[in-house]
């Protein structure tokens, strides 16, 4: 049957050799999966129909802004690219058929937006208002992109010098642009170049670990008030190698609770068509996505 489908899709067998191997090696399990799936969908469908309109004892709706910051910082500290991908996640437990309107204080900063099918397009087009009847439970109301941001909350300054068979590394981390909330779970990771024999790295704050796959991971956590965290040490190169020619890229992780770093702010959330006043909760969170610092 699978074969039938595949030929039906007009894909040359040689091209999807990988897929075929998978199919052959997994045998019938593949078929089982696909046979079951549609009916599973159907039962979900039925349950959805049955459950509407929903009755909830606790009438509540939560709106979360979750953002990820992607950035590239050059070896001279210049911000090459900085962009935020964000999502508006809604968790709704509301009875009946509620009609919600969510508006932002500054929708103009959004570069590109995509919506959950429940969002009505016209209010957004005319007034940048999200008008929707939420499905029950957790869902992604909207995703957006904000580009060309000017700064990052923290700085990471690596210095790498290399001569006579060793390589000295020092990395400093600090707050560049205080977002007003604590920056948490700061980590700095980098891949040791393959020609490195051994590494001796210490830090004045947080733990430095060298993992099995030659990844060096420095977990800082929060930045202390009294000192700037730094890590330094030396890498010993393979014998015969005078100096390191390729320098590692540092990948930075962090998390800021309570702030959407893109600057996007929720103005208000109106609820209509509800029997009683529900509880409304708002949260924001920004974390590092692909945050690369080159050395």
């Amino acid at each position, binding site marked *: 049957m699978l074969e*039938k*489908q595949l*030929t*039906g*899709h*007009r*894909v*040359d*067998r040689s*091209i*999807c*050799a*990988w*897929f075929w191997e998978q199919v052959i*090696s*997994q*045998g*019938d399990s593949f078929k*089982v*999966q*696909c*046979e*079951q*799936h*549609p*009916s599973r*969908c*159907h039962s979900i469908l039925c349950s*959805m129909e049955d459950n*509407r309109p929903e009755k909830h004892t606790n009438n509540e709706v939560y709106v979360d802004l979750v953002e990820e910051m*992607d950035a590239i910082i050059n070896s001279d500290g210049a911000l*090459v690219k900085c962009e935020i*991908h964000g999502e508006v996640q809604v968790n709704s437990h509301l009875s009946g058929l509620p009609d919600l309107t969510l508006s932002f204080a500054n929708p103009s900063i959004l*570069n*590109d*937006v*995509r*919506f959950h*099918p*429940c*969002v*009505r*397009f*016209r209010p957004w*087009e*005319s007034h940048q208002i999200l008008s*929707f*009847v939420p*499905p029950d439970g957790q*869902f*992604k109301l909207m995703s957006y*992109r904000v580009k060309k941001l000017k700064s990052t909350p923290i700085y990471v300054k690596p210095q790498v010098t290399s001569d006579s068979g060793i390589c000295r590394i020092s990395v400093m981390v600090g707050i560049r642009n205080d977002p007003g909330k604590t920056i948490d779970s700061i980590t700095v990771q980098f*891949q040791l170049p393959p020609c490195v024999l051994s590494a001796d790295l210490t830090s004045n704050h947080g733990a430095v670990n060298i993992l099995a796959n030659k990844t060096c991971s420095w977990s800082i956590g929060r930045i202390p008030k009294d000192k700037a965290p730094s890590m330094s040490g030396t890498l010993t190169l393979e014998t015969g190698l005078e100096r390191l*020619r*390729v*320098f590692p*890229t540092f990948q930075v992780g962090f998390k800021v609770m309570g702030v959407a770093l893109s600057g996007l702010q929720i103005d208000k959330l109106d609820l209509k068509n509800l029997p009683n006043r529900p509880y409304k909760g708002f949260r924001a969170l920004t974390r590092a996505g*692909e945050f*690369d610092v*080159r050395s």
Partner: protein
Amino acid sequence: MGLERHCWVQTESPLKYEKKCCPLSPDFGGDFIRPLLNSSSPFIRFTSSKPISSLFTGDRFLSASIEYNDGSSSSISPLSFSFAFSTLRSSVESNDGIWNSRSDPDFDNSHPKPNSTRKGEVSDLKMQLRQLAGSRAPGTDDSKRELFKKVISYMTIGIDVSSVFSEMVMCSATSDIVLKKMCYLYVGNHAKYNPDLALLTINFLQKDCKDEDPMIRGLALRSLCSLRVANLVEYLVGPLGLGLKDGNSYVRTVATVGVLKLYHISSATCVDADFPTMLKHLMLSDPDTQVVANCLSALQEIWSLEASKSEEASREKEALLSKPVVYYFLNRIKEFSEWAQCLVLELVAKYVPSDSNEIFDVMNLLEDRLQHANGAVVLATIKLFLQLTLSMTDVHQQVYERIKAPLLTLVSSGSPEQSYAVLSHLHLLVTRAPMLFSSDYKHFYCQYNEPFYVKKLKLEMLTALASESNTYEIVTELCEYAANVDIPIARESIRAVGKIALQQYDVNAIVDRLLQFLEMEKDYVTAETLVLVKDLLRKYPQWSHDCIAVVGNISSKNVQEPKAKAALIWMLGEYAQDMQDAPYVLESLIDNWEDEYSAEVRLHLLTAVMKCFLRRPPETQKALGDALAAGIADFHQDVHDRALFYYRLLQYNVSVAERVVNPPKQAVSVFADPQNSEIKDRIFDEFNSLSVVYQKPSYMFTDKEHRGPFVFSEELGNLSIGVESASNVVSTQMLEANDNDLLLSTSEKEESRGASSNGSAYNAPSTDGSSNQLLATHSPQPSMAIDDLLGLGLPVAPNPAPSPPPLKLNARAVLDPSTFQQKWRQLPISVSQEYSMNPQGVAALTTPQSLLQHMQGNYIQCIASGGQAPNFKFFFFAQKAEESSTFLVECVINSASCMAQLKIKADDQSTSQAFAALFQSALSTFGMT
């Protein structure tokens, strides 16, 4: 920009369209299309979709294909994307060894093992099942469930459980739905291989098809259709007919797909039972959109397969693309599920709107689809927008502007596989309109964690969109990657820098950067750079001084890769005059002749030492003697021949040898693009399909039986489809042309031959340099109207078109080969004439492709072409602009006698003379600039 509503309108001036950003009044969009936005309908709720990343997963794909598209689909649908992802792995794997899927433990465990102990277990199961079969004791269902689960899990891991077939059937008499589902699953899997036993199941399946519970009715019908046993077809017709009329939408959904399954088992039964007509009725009237979508996909498939057999089916197939049907779907599109929306968008993409107002209506209606959470919907919409506006230059340009943001978002959100697929599409668009993205280049900077295949494509993007304004930044960024830990990426980025250098006029800074690479003292960096410096010197000989100074410092011992070594040797020979120690370096290389394993390097060594000898005879004489001796004794045929050739040439006349080996060279102006524009256009036509990901048109990678055009071309004898020959024939013909071009560029030719015999990548430049010049003298290619229509900001040079023709042709005529064939058979010849071509036209006809492009510029499309000088044969077609009246042409050209024989057939006989005149005038401008 993303926040503004783009409203596609036609402005007062009839010639100019512009895009306005304005809030829409609710009834915008004309009378026919009234957007439905009924978000309180339960349907919209349950599509509360998955995260984007999950949309492209294989599991999703499989489910989609089963439910909506079971059997096969008629086109390369967006669904095939997920395929791309599963197959991408394999292609990248083989190239770079990045993944090692073999290390996956599941992989090894899941192989079916012939296991003797299992045999006992299966017969055990059989016993237990038999005991339970008749039992009505409480708790029986639970134990049955356990047993069924076991059977299914054995089946899953590949153990043969067909022996319990009859017991399974006996146990199926139950009201428990879970048990039923498992039983259906089992039966569906085994019936095909046990047609006799399958008969046993018919009874209970038929009974279940009349069950009270719609769920059971649906499941039973689905299983019944999935048996796929030809001699049970008679039992299918009844339940299917009832299913199509069922009150429950789930049952109807299943039944519509069931009709398609039946069609594939026995097309005659399906058509005789009049199911297609019933489907059509359902499609246009059913309240449930899933039923409608399934009807559409089933009908598309059935009618396109039937179309070659019956007139009526092909009419029905065309009716699917008629205005009322298309508008019906458009008006309901928001109710459809994501995949069904893709289906509808595909359908609309084939529809040819009558005027620009209609185009704007459609675009305004679908504008919001660009903000859909599902990437497939977004891509399908983009395809539609691009296709609709092909003939409207300004609007097409605006479409590019509009789709930029959604595409870039798709690239950076979601899985790397999705990024790759979308990047491939962006790459295609960038090659068509490079200026458009020239300010967004930062989006294509590589992040550290991205997989190799994404990075590589991003490098290609950066190369493609480099323009004067951003070259500096892009090259700076690429230089960062050259020092990357990842060696393949470092190599790719150096190549990218080189490519940018070759396409830019101002190369100062880039040459400096390249030379800095040479100082990095990394062997792979040096190797890649040498190859590039060689190409650069061939294009910009004026840089030789700076380059030679740096290259001269490189010790040939540090260069090991054949390509790089060959490049270095080429430079040593070419610039023997300027490099002090060239003869001595060559001599030491010749001393190590025996150790040189690459024939390519040895060939280059021979040529270089010849060149060096002709410039500095006293110093090189000994080396030349050694090289010729070693070359003649070489086991490699090409090396041997070349050495012998040089030897005899020198023996014959040294000054002739000089002219052969060291002719005055012109700088190469353009290195040939490996893909010609026709192929690129084909790929563009297949936007939103695997063609874009593979970067080749679908006929190059699809199965033979699914290739419509090829069946056709085989029937027509030795004709081949124009494009296919384009890829292979062109290059060989260029080589041949080269061969004919005797002494002019022999050394170049030899280099290329050496390279091709070696199968290495060092081939394109040397051939194309000469052949390009060759082509340039013979046939300045007419600029293609299609390209102009895209509005790439180029001055739109109207083709030397015939003086205002009374007959207007459709610029986007489409006709599939089977229809062509059918029409060709049916229609009488309305015009048959001979026509003598002008000599320029004949001269330009070096390959069939040149004519194809020219005719395409005149809105006359080629469907098949072939032949070799002096006889060429073409089949063209064209459509009238306003109506779907088609002209078919058979054109035989003899380039020796300059005669063209035309046979024209037309739907509308009255206009065939006008068309013949048009065709001739188009033909007469061929070869003129």
